[in-house]
């Protein structure tokens, strides 16, 4: 029975995903994107049939597992466009270092501002980087890795929705700006969006994701504790 539920969960998720893709292609509303529609439909089915997430995920985790080789696969677009990336090396490093620093500090400050507890705040800080790394950082700075995984997911979904609006309002024209902001602001889902813009945008987004991950590990384990202590001590004299 457990095996059957896992099997149906796996095939069902894939089927609903491709169904959502068709609907999205037909109507084109951002909120109908498969990354939103599929989870909503599956959650409704789980609630109606009373299936616990653990039973669903026995099948679903097969898909999550593919994120591992998919991350390795980013080596291919990076390799193919390496000459170009080398030319943009300084621009990439500076933009992503600034982006990562802004991500960490603004998540922390906004979380303080709206009054979230310490666990939620620390789980939000690493939300801008790809899931496995964000979960590791979360553990290192005292957050909850599971909560972080959900926040990373939410960041990806919302970032993918917000980015095209920001690109239009701010007139970002260069493929490097579009790709880097998508990879920095919405990691994997952003990169998949960037490939919709074009191969070049996608490549910049892939490299942004990788660089952001590495820089965030350094920033959140070295500078973030200092920054946190500084903010807390100036707030509570």
């Amino acid at each position: 029975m457990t095996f059957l539920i896992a099997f149906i969960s796996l095939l069902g998720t894939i089927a609903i995903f491709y169904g959502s893709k068709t609907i999205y292609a037909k109507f084109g509303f951002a909120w109908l994107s498969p990354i939103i529609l599929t989870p909503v439909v599956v959650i409704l089915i789980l609630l109606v049939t009373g299936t616990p997430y653990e039973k669903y995920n026995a099948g679903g985790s097969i898909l999550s597992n593919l994120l591992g080789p998919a991350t390795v696969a980013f080596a291919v677009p990076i390799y193919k466009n390496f000459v170009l990336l080398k030319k943009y090396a300084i621009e990439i490093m500076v933009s992503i270092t600034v982006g990562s620093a802004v991500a960490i500090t603004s998540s922390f400050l906004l979380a303080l501002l709206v009054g979230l507890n310490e666990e939620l705040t620390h789980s939000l800080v690493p939300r801008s980087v790809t899931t496995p790394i964000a979960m590791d950082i979360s553990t290192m700075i005292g957050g909850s890795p599971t909560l972080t995984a959900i926040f990373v997911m939410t960041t990806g979904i919302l970032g993918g929705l917000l980015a095209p609006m920001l690109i239009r309002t701010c007139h970002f024209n260069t493929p490097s700006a579009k790709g880097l902001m998508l990879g920095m602001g919405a990691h994997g889902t952003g990169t998949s969006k960037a490939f919709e813009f074009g191969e070049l945008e996608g490549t910049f987004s892939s490299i942004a994701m990788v660089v952001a991950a590495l820089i965030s590990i350094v920033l959140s384990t070295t500078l973030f504790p200092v920054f946190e202590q500084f903010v807390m001590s100036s707030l509570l004299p």
Partner: protein
Amino acid sequence: MRFAKSILQIGYLYVMLFIGNSISSVLHIPIPGSIIGLGLLFLLLQFNIIKLEWVELGAGLLLSELLLFFIPSAIGVINYDELFGVQGMKVIAVIVGSGIVVMLATGYMAEWFGHRKKGDVV
């Protein structure tokens, strides 16, 4: 045939992942195995030890269906009741606010460099 080839190539990517994971755990470095695997595959391609044709189809298949692999974790949100109330709204406010600032900072930084580059040429 094309599909079978892609599946086989995903197998190669899993081998890279496995090596990356082993390196990460043996050397105790805080970088996940997937990122080490990415770096390793890149170097092997760069030094012509692995040919692009050996992994290109499989990598292409995974990258084009990337969103699908995020879906099960997104569904995991049903286990967190506390996120469906005021707390959840606050969290979303933080993510939206910080997300906009991050993307603007990154985008403007890159655009600024882009225009400076154009300026160099003229």
